[in-house]
């Protein structure tokens, strides 16, 4: 299980690589169609996931 934290890094790939998941207008946020705000939101999420993998790796040592 030592490397299980790396599975977190697969999340952005799953979130982005099937456009059928997010290729729609509703629900809107601040006038942005879902297609756009979902993809923009996943950027900081990716950032945080990478940060978690890094911190979990450090905690093990």
């Amino acid at each position, binding site marked *: 299980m030592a490397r299980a934290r790396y599975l977190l890094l697969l999340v952005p790939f799953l979130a982005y690589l099937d456009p059928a998941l997010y290729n729609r207008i509703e629900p809107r946020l601040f*006038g942005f169609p879902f297609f756009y705000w979902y993809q*923009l939101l996943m950027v900081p999420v990716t950032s945080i996931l990478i940060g978690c993998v890094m911190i979990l790796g450090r905690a093990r040592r």
Partner: protein
Amino acid sequence: MLSLRDGIFTGLVVLVTLVGFVAARWGNANLRHLEEWALGGRRFGTIVSWFLIGGDIYTAYTFIAVPALVYGVGALGFYAVPYAAIGYPYGFVVLSRFWSLARERGYVTSADFVRDRFGSRPLEVAIALTGVLASLPYIALQLVGMKAVLMHLGGAFAISNGELALSVAFVLLAAYTFTSGLRAPAAIAFVKDTLIYVTVIAAIIIIPAKLGGWGHIFAVAPKPLLVPKVQVAYATLAFGSCLALFLYPHSITSILAAKSKEVVQRNMSLLPIYSLMLGFLALLGYCAIAAHITTKDTSSIIPTLLGAYFPDWLAGIAFAAIVIGALVPAAIMAIGSANLFASNIFSEFRHGRGHVDAHLSKLLTLALCAFALCFVIFVPTAYAINLQLLGGIWMVQIVPAFVLGLYTRALHPAALLLGWLCAMLVATAMAASTALGGTGISPNITFTFFGHGVTAYIALYALAINLAIAVVASPLCWAFARRIATRA
């Protein structure tokens, strides 16, 4: 008499030129050594690396081309956002490993690793050539980004299609890169990215407010969603481009300049901030539509949009940001390609070379800058754009040797070379066939599988062929090598 806009623009560009030359004194190093000149002595911490890598992969051409693409094709052009986002988890894994090996074994380029791992000169040259071929049109496109701004500024900046100002800027760039090496773009990147963030934040506040808000802008956008048949193209473009993102020589150069593996990892977590900015910038393409900007030359839409809605002083800052945003990556690309040429193609340096002379790399940097300048002046822009697209497709083809090579020795260098060669030829043929319609190269191609037409990124089709050959031919090559060994 200079206007306020032109004065601020000129002032900022002169300032970064001075910074570029003064950067030679940074850290008091001996710039005759390759590692000092080309990699800043491998001493950059988290913040310097963040500016350097960010300044390197989000280029002026990106800032001009991504909104232009969204303006032209709508939602499909937004693939730049997923592309840059998934590049980071991939980079986190692959680059940590590469950085550690490079520090231990003294690599300066990706091809250095390939030579060391596989002991094959032909494979090393193949990897180096791919990098150089992909970089040259990319450097040229930075000039195209600058040219778009110079033409918009008009007056003295636009003399003979902006080529005079372009030549002056590029000669200065070549001169300070020659003198200061990687320290020049690293120092300038601070100024560049500060200006870029100011510009983008101002743009996404000011422009939508004047155009009736984001709701209205999306309402008038002609193609706000992907039509179902381009969904595969969207995903494969994002995935294929992400594979190549950190394989370009300029990315490798700025990664290897980091002082520790932790700096690389921290940056993979922090760099997506740039992708967020890029996402908003892409949406300026829709703003241009809402603002009724019509033009044949889509590279002019960002300068036109910013010129129309920004006050003079802010427009001066924005235009300087784009021009400086071209100089930083152009310098790093020239350094990265010069290193590949000097180390791996001319094979000037042998292994374990912390203190070798940087002289050849420095001269090659000048030659590459001159070549890129001539390219932009004498060759139509459409060629540079097509070649850059092709370069991205080629770059993906070093994945088996470079990325898989970091993790396994199971693949035989001859099999990898054969896979690479076939993939390069097939990819080029596919790309050329898309250009037959006369509208330039399309990155996607349609094939029919079991009665279903699938439109996907050419780079991934070629990578599949590449991997299949490498995997199938490797056992044969190993068996052949063993037979020869037992006979002898």
